């Protein structure tokens, strides 16, 4: 369970960081910002569309590997999937996608909290630069 969770988390976190750094998207996105740090929704959507293809492909690969390792023991007596294996694969995929969704929601919550904190700190500094915020 821990391995699957770790992989799902890594799939969301590492993938986003890696592809952003590779494409130098920070400056590209920064050009469109307003003064208070809010991002243009259209730009966010475009960014998400670009990232989504990679994210889905990565998630599919990880899910396939994880479920194959868990459900299909390496003793191949026949070419077809047996009933037990196909039941196991159904459950594995359902759990993986559920996990992916929950972790994504949690991550979105955390990044919203993060941004609130950043915003408050920025406002605090703007108002009184000398004070420790």
């Amino acid at each position, binding site marked *: 369970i*821990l*391995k699957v969770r*770790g992989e799902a*988390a*890594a799939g969301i*976190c*590492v993938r*986003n*960081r890696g592809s952003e750094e590779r494409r130098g*998207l*920070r*400056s590209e*996105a*920064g*050009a469109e910002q307003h003064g208070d*740090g809010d*991002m243009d929704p259209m730009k*966010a*959507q475009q*960014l*998400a*569309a670009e*990232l*989504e293809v990679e*994210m*889905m*492909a990565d*998630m*599919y*690969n990880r899910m*396939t590997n994880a479920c194959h390792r868990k*459900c299909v*023991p390496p003793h191949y*007596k026949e070419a077809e999937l*047996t*009933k*037990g*294996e*196909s*039941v*196991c694969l159904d*459950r594995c995929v359902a759990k993986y996608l559920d996990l*992916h*969704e929950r972790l*994504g*929601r949690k*991550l*979105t919550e*955390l*990044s*919203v909290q*993060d*941004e609130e*904190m*950043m915003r408050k*700190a*920025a406002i605090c*500094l*703007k108002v009184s630069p000398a004070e420790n*915020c």
Partner: protein
Amino acid sequence: MAASTGAADAAASDSTGPASSVPNMSSPTIQYSMVLEHLIGEKRPIKDLSPGVMGGLPVPPKSDEQKMIERGMESCAFKSVLACVGGFVLGGAFGVFTAGIDTNVGFDPKDPLRTPTAREVLKDMGQRGMSYAKNFAIVGAMFSCTECIIESHRGKSDWKNAVYSGCVTGGAIGFRAGLKAGVLGCGGFAAFSAAIEYYLR
């Protein structure tokens, strides 16, 4: 696992980094929450998920009928019906065969040396065949049904499924004659199943 948690920690610290250092207003930051909402949150687009899109080998999508047929053929009910029919045929053949070997028909106490008529022999063969066929059919259906249910529940396919379902079937058959016969039936049929599985695997 250490690597993935390390990566997750790095990602978390990366997003909290700008908060702690509080940069000047001109440095650009990506608003992760907005991007994430489009990626995995409420505003994500509805995608048609197929392996061709996501990096696997493109496979033509199966029609609904085909999926229904395949699901039916994999189901426990279909398998037990198949085993029932197979058991019936096998039992019939077996019964007819043993009737030919072990004749006890047409015995007339007044005339012990009389050979039975063809009609009597055929009638005996038919009865025996039918009785064996019904027994085999019931046993086969029960075994197949319980094995399929146990396999679906466990999610694995190995030799233990056959042993467990053999015990259940033998127990159910023997239970009609009392608890001890049930336990004996369970053990015997489970051992028989284990032997067959060992031979098959």
